[in-house]
Every structure is written in C-alpha cells, then in structure tokens.
C-alpha cells in the first residue's frame, strides 16, 4: 500500500540523484513544495525526465507498480501533475489507486 510518505521518498531520491551532476551551490534539498517542471521550477527537461524515469522504475521494482507518468492524461489536467513534488505524489497515488 503506497502512502504519501512512501511516494515522497521515491521522488526525493530521484531528485537527490540529480545533485551529483550539479554544482554544490545548485544542489536541491527536496521538499513537497519543490517545483519540478513548469513556471518557477528547479529542473530542466533533461533532469525532469531523469526524475520521472527513476520514479517509474522505483515504483515498478520496489512496489510492483507499472504506471506511466508521461501520457495524455498528464497534460489534460487543470493543474499539471509535474508542478511540484506534492502534485506528482498525488498523481502517482491516483494512478496507483486505479491500477490496484
């Protein structure tokens, strides 16, 4: 059973993995409010795809969940699921609920 905390931890790990490629002054300490993609976000699209890939992989390998985070549904919502850690977490939980 996925919880808010479980999904947040998965996303945090994916963001922290980016820090190895960033200058010390540009490293990210992720919180639920960390902007991911879109206006005021911290990631470029290369980094964002890395996060999405790592999150999908972790959900599959560690939690047996096979979901796609980048599809038509993601772009048809009033608020982008990629806006922040919190919106991505909620999107993951929504897709996980439908898959179970």
């Amino acid at each position: 059973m996925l919880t808010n905390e479980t999904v947040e931890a998965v996303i945090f790990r994916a963001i922290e993995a980016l820090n190895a490629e960033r200058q010390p002054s540009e490293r990210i300490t992720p919180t639920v409010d960390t902007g991911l993609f879109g206006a005021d976000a911290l990631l470029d699209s290369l980094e964002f795809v890395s996060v999405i890939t790592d999150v999908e992989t972790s959900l599959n390998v560690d939690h047996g969940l096979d979901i796609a985070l980048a599809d038509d549904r993601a772009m048809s919502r009033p608020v982008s699921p990629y806006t922040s850690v919190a919106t991505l977490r909620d999107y993951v939980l929504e897709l996980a609920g439908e898959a179970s």
Partner: protein
Amino acid sequence: MLAPMELRGRHVALRPLTTRDAEMTLRWRLDDRASLLNRGAATVEEQRAWIAARPESEHNFIIELLDGRPVGMLSLIAIDLVHRRAEPARFLIGEPQLVRGVPAAVEAMLLLYRLAFDDLGLHRVYGTVAEENAGMVKWQTFLGMTEEGRLREHYRLDGRVQDAICLGMLEHEYRTVALPRMTALVGAASVDREPAAEQ
C-alpha cells in the same frame, strides 16, 4: 541539398547554425557539461571553420527560446533518403540556467523528430552515446529510443576508453511511444504558463 529552415514550437525554436554562433557554441562545447561529447574545435577560429564546413546534407540548429535567447544546439546528420534514416546528433543544452522549468530539450528533440519522420519521411533515427553518459541514455530511452547494441571501447574521452551504446528508433515507435510522451511533457509544462482558454 537541404534548404535551411526554422522550426518553431510552443517554447523553443530551432534556427540554422551559422558562423556567427562560433564563439557561443565553442563556449558550450568546452564546458564540463559537454565532457562526454566528442572533442572538436579548440579556438573560435577553428569552430567557425568547422561550422562553415558543415555539408548541406546536414541540418544543424541552434535551440532558441521564443524570445530569441539561444540555449543549446542540435543536429540531424547522416541523412540518407535512400535508406530513409538519419542521426540526431550534437545535442547540447549550453545555458542550463535559462531552461529550468522549460521543456526546451524535449521540445527541441520533438521538433527534430517531426522534421525527420514527418517532413523528410524517414523510417529510422539512430545514434551512439558514450557509456558513462548514463543520463543521456536514460533520457533517450525514456523518449522512445531502444538500446540496440554496444560498440566496445569505441570512444576515448578525457583519456578513458568507453563503450558506445547504440540507440535507435523506428517510425512506428516514434508515433506510438516518443510522440505521446514528448507531447505530454511539453503540454503539461505549458499548463501553468498559459492562460486558460475563454469559455
């Protein structure tokens, strides 16, 4: 002979690379971010000469934000209209600070794939990435490329020998995998930037 062209998206445009871009593109190529790409020119003059020598069978682009600020470069090379294949290459975001939160890299690649598959009618795109450039391999495979093989000790970069990962994508994979994912990423990144349409 391929005519110079400009490709325009929702966030970025691709315009032809010219010799006036020599200083800027050399700075990008000499940055640490490009350490896993093939080394090229060492001086502005060499870079200018390299740009001037690009054959007309290639499309070499500067990636610009729609306000005209250049942020990177991208090419479609080895275009073969007989075998209907080509190689996306020289992909580099040189101004990472300017593209935070902007789907610049995704949309630039999407524009290049549209050129390859829709405008040129190609059947396949392909390329190689240095093994240590794991982020680029991850990025390309998420966006539709398939790992097709490995060329052993194919590169010598920064004094180290590395394998080359061979990646490829067929037209139907572009339409069923790459295009939906890229469109979703570009579209979702636009949600918070663009005003809602009037009802």
